[in-house]
């Protein structure tokens, strides 16, 4: 059984946020939800300021705090190393969000049909959508993983917790996650961490790597190469405008 992971090359990332857009389009995530988020950071003062970028998907931790605390096993380890959320089981207690040190969980605070960027009732848009509502993508209505659960980006429900799935629905078809496939700088790599010949293993061999909040012993499966772990001297310079 493969152990899927991601390698993010910070020397290549230039903060275009194409991965964020690709994730949104692929998973139809509601307004304000970013399963993949790219922090734009700055360190030092002008004229010696330095800008850096930090893409942050779910870390799909081997020792995931969210999996431990979920009272109903809605958050669970899927074969292949995915940390998945069963949307038909989540009670919306948000204990996973409290326990996760990375802040990658998104609760559906509103009805998904009311939390889209466009007014999908607009008659001009109906020919484009063919009558399908964007939060209920029929292409993703299947069940995924060995446990055959509904874990991917379709029929987003009010009152349920969501997060990055490593695009399990794409990986099952042999594709890379949407963020990886759409990165113009080839900064994101996805593959089997246990396979020494895989793209991710080769990336990890070439450069020194680190993981986010490594001291927390969560054993994340997202590795960074290049750059440096963020510290308290780094500040965020620009946030995504999520609502009016």
């Amino acid at each position, binding site marked *: 059984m493969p152990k899927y992971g991601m390698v993010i090359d910070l020397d290549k990332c230039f903060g275009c946020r194409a991965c964020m857009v690709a994730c949104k389009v692929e998973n139809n995530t509601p307004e304000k939800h970013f399963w993949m988020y790219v*922090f734009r*950071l700055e360190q030092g003062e002008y004229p010696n300021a330095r800008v850096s970028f930090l893409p942050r998907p779910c870390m799909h931790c081997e020792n995931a*705090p969210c*999996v*431990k*605390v*979920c*009272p*109903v*096993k809605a958050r669970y380890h899927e074969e292949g190393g995915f940390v998945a959320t069963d949307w038909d*089981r*989540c*009670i*919306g*207690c*948000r*204990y996973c*969000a*409290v*326990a*996760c*040190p*990375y*802040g990658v*969980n*998104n*609760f*559906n*605070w*509103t*009805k998904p049909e*009311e939390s889209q960027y466009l007014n999908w009732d607009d008659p001009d848009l109906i020919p484009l959508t063919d009558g399908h509502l964007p939060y209920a993508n029929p292409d993703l209505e299947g069940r995924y993983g060995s446990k055959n659960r509904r874990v991917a980006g379709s029929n987003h429900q*009010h*009152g*349920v*917790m969501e997060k990055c799935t490593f695009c399990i629905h794409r990986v099952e078809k042999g594709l890379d996650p949407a963020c990886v496939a759409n990165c113009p700088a080839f900064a994101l790599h996805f593959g089997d961490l246990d396979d020494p010949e895989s793209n991710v293993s080769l990336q990890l061999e070439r450069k020194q790597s680190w993981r*986010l*909040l490594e001291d*927390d012993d*969560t054993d994340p499966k997202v590795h960074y190469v290049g750059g440096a772990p*963020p*510290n*308290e001297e*780094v*500040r*965020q310079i620009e946030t995504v405008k999520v609502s009016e």
Partner: protein
Amino acid sequence: MATRTMGNRTAISNYGFYAWIGFLAVIVVIGFINFIRQTTDGHHLTGLSDAFPWGLYITGFVFFVGASAGATIIGLMIHAFGRDDYAPLATRALLVGLLSLIAAVLFIAVDVGSIPRMVRLPLIWRNETSMFTYTSSSYYVFGAMLAAELYLALKITRGEATDGDRTVAKWLAIIATPFAIIVLHATTGSLFAVAKARDFWSSPLLPPHFAVVALLSGTAIMMCVAWVTSIVNGVELVSKRTVAHMGAVVALFITLAAFMDFFDFIVYKYSDEYAGNEAFHALWSDGWILSSLHVGGYVAALTIILFNRGRSVGLLGAAAAISLVAAGAYRFNLTAAGQAPPLLPFLERIHYSPSWVEISVSAGIVALITLAYSVATRVLPMEEPAGPRLSEPKM
């Protein structure tokens, strides 16, 4: 014993009672309307966010679990510790314990995204590594024990209890007392303490701290009940000496809680621990009003109790009410301060203020259990008639 029993006599008129019930009913209706709005429209009507997922509802839940445990222990004093002078309070304390537990569960119910799924926990769905599984299991068990104990207490007050009923009541009390302290509230404390991302909560001291504040709030609630009942019924429910004894118990728990708070502060202050320092900054910047209520309330309550030489029931009741406010402020501060430090070092401290919807729904829950208590104490026999008790009073 200076205790006087008075059946269900009341010093206030029926009009006064109905006005009180009407007032509570209005708050319940407003809360219910806002709960329906929140359910149909979404939890975005609360002040919560992905960065700050737990707020006033969780504070209410923790407060009432604690109150339930503490009040129940007062109700079981007669059985568990042979304190016969607490007998007139026993049935009321069990009622307060049960209603507080119901309030705690209602607070969780309004907080979660799906109530129909929540009720499957823990019998149908459960996760053995989640503290939530153990806390929810303990609420079912404790609720059943409390309901049985209350049923037996009502039989005793009606004079219908057999010797077998009294033996069962005694054994239930012996089991329920440690259960209330250790299992019920310590597991609730563990719920917070095991949250990986929240360094401020991640302390082995938190479960015992929770248990101490639970005992403090439960005892203080029952002091308030004794005080208010004496005003409403115009007759002392328990003797001044018993109220003073409860005051001493509250003072002891305030001292213990303050002791833990103080050493928490010292450790965070001088260990230069990032999350702890951030949390304390949050407490004394955004949350300074509640922090002042927390610290000032403890000091004021302790001062009144220790210097109330005349053992005035009114002053002791006021001290109990103040310590309840302080305990509530502590619960809110704990919930808020644990989530205030940013998860990643470059993010900013997180702010939270409860919304009108959260406040009205919370007030509705409190009003609902107060209403239930008011009606129950009106229609059910709350004091044991003269005659043999479980054990003979100590001279």
